[in-house]
């Protein structure tokens, strides 16, 4: 007891520092969670959120009654899996490459230019993409493919590649930055010792850089896996210009919710979908973290 109190006293400043964030979290993230009840209600404004009639799981049924639900879930999951793999792989590669650039100003230039797309809004990117793919004035159809133009926005063939590319181009700067921080924390003497022992660049990467980066990789992986049932609405709605021919490869849970939100009962149904997304994300994080802990307890998040 005595020890506990002394400890508490010792940490009071830290708790005080945490307080504003904790209040923010409670007000902004926890209190609104009561809205989850809307997922089980047929919302009537005259009755209020508590008084509205309960409809059980009907709001969830709507989600699964769609004929396209298989395609929608497949798209959401597969795109996210590919995004996680591609963004992390490319991010690590770029981080290693940039870390080895010795010229300070060039290093900064590369780093900033990779991060730049991360700061752009999807609306702007959708027009950049349109400038390339436009069927009337687009750069690609009017230069490379001038004799054999592709109806980009009506032909789903290439969109999985286009979306993965755009997502990587936009998002890779962020993971590169985190991995560069991880690499810069690695003791340079390890590399010097390895070089003396005759290890080449490739060997240094696989034996020193990657193993020591593992904690960052796992953290980023766990963070992204919790969002696996979510999708970037802008990427899937704005980049393909909401073109109907492409729905089979661009429909995800978020675009689906958006399209059905205007229909009757939208509040209950979107609450239900959101609850489902959060629940799946929660379960996946617990499972993934459990697996990591089994393999190597020191790398697990909790």
């Amino acid at each position: 007891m005595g020890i506990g109190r002394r400890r508490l006293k010792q940490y009071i400043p830290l708790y005080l520092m945490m307080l504003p964030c904790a209040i923010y979290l409670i007000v902004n993230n926890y209190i609104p969670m009561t809205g989850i009840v809307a997922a089980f209600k047929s919302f009537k404004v005259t009755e209020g959120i508590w008084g509205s009639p309960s409809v059980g799981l009907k709001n969830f049924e709507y989600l699964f009654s769609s004929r396209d639900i298989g395609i929608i879930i497949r798209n959401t999951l597969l795109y996210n899996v590919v995004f996680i793999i591609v963004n992390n792989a490319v991010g690590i590669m770029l981080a290693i490459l940039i870390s080895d650039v010795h010229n300070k100003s060039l290093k900064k230039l590369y780093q900033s230019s990779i991060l730049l797309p991360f700061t752009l809004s999807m609306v702007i990117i959708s027009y950049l993409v349109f400038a390339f793919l436009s069927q009337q004035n687009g750069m690609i159809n009017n230069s490379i493919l001038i004799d054999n133009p592709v109806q980009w926005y009506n032909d789903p063939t290439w969109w999985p590649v286009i979306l993965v590319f755009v997502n990587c181009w936009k998002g890779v700067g962020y993971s590169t930055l985190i991995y560069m921080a991880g690499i810069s924390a690695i003791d340079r003497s390890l590399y010097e010792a390895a070089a003396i022992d005759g290890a080449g660049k490739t060997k240094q990467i696989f034996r020193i850089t990657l193993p020591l980066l593992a904690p960052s990789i796992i953290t980023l992986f766990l963070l992204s896996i919790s969002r696996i049932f979510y999708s970037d609405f802008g990427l899937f709605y704005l980049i393909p210009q909401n073109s109907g021919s492409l729905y089979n490869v661009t429909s995800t849970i978020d675009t689906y919710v958006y399209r059905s939100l205007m229909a009757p009962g939208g509040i209950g149904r979107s609450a239900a979908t959101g609850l489902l997304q959060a629940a799946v994300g929660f379960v996946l994080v617990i499972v993934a973290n459990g697996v990591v802990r089994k393999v190597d307890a020191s790398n697990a998040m909790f």
Partner: protein
Amino acid sequence: MWKKALSITLVLVMATTLMAGVMSTAFAQEEPYTVYFAYHAPKEGNQAALNEVMNELTMRELNMKVELIPIGWDTYNQKYPAMLAAQQPLDISFVFSFSFASFLDAGFIVDASDYVEYTPDIFEVLGDDAQVGYIGDMLVGFPVMNTRAAPSAIFVRKDIFDALGYKESDFNVTTDDYASFGQITEMLGRIKEAYPDMVPFDGHRIFAENSFTWVDAMSDGFGVLENYGQTTTVTNWYESEQIKQFSLLAREWFEKGYTSKDIAVTQELGQGKMKAGNCAAFFASYTANALTSVKSQTGYDCVMIPVSAKMKSTTSVNAVLNCVMQQSKDKVKAFQFLNWCYTSKEFNDLLNWGVPGVDWVVNDDGQADYPEGVTTQTVNYHSDFGFIYPNQFLMTPWAGSPADIWEAYREFDEDAIASKAFGFSFDAVNVANEVAQCSAVLSKYQADIFFGAVDTETGLASLNAELYDAGLQTIMDEKQRQLDAWLAKQ
């Protein structure tokens, strides 16, 4: 996204209940009732000065005060349902027809049939057209007083039209003979030849996109009365010969390069494309005085080639309704106020043109005009949304309009064909799920098929197959059932 929306909603709910509590105690001592009046406007936040002037008018005539709430298109689409759910103080609001189902489902709107004794003047002004406000037994609201028919036309730049030696009398396009649409195809071909750098036809509307022009769409277009509503059998328009002909025509234009290759993708208005200078023609629905407004929107003089007959249907009249909302503190007062809105010339003028002497003056011709030194760019309040305010026919017309403009508007409707189901409104509540699923299917196919970006036959075949899978037949059966019941009562 939902989480954010929901948290905002909840915070708003809490804040507004608090506010409402504070305010209602304040009102208890203050006698004149304040009507919160939401109206559609191109701009928000410029109404403070106007609100003062409006208050003087309403205090004088009604012993009520008014709080004006301008709502833009984006706000309506993205935030309005959340604002309503948050119980923001509101008495009267405009509601677009595409929101009826969801607003009724959520219980946002008051049934006006319980208050008809307070709205006699509205019924007087609207006449039979007031019937379109009924959905089932509920009187949802009142349509605005405006032109009723929504025929469509192709608008062509006059300089190009004249340069190619065309005369308006050369064109006689009618749905009785689809071959007559070939006249337009031929013209677009000559435009392409003579102006190779221009896109002959562009925009975000085309024949099949304007269902309300050709058929009685019965609110959502899933099950319609074809041939300008001159039948009482509900059919699937997407299987009709008409849709096929319209889509084939668009396909021909697309393949010959008469339309932009991006026409199915970009959502920009034809008016905007023409203003940018690269587009020779576009498709749009029109009312009386159309060429004056097209000139102000595009900057070009245009020629109008009508391509349809004129029809009025419930859907074209109840596109927007003025409704009393459920959070109104005093519904009788709200209906009395709304009743007055349809009869007061001053109210309609103020709402449309702003503060007299500051935003507008009456010129020597008795028409509204900018005061000395005020221009389109510098004016504070200038809605020019008369078509969506309670009674456009009372308004002072803007300078440059024909002297007898409202007469012309009335005449415009006189030779319109009325749909056989005019006055009938479909109540979608039993098939809400099917309608939602069908809307999702349609949005997947419509732009590509109707603008001709994909093969017509295969496109229409998969559209119809998916529509039936999504429950189209159920909607059509329900519509036919409700229509038959309605017809039996007539």
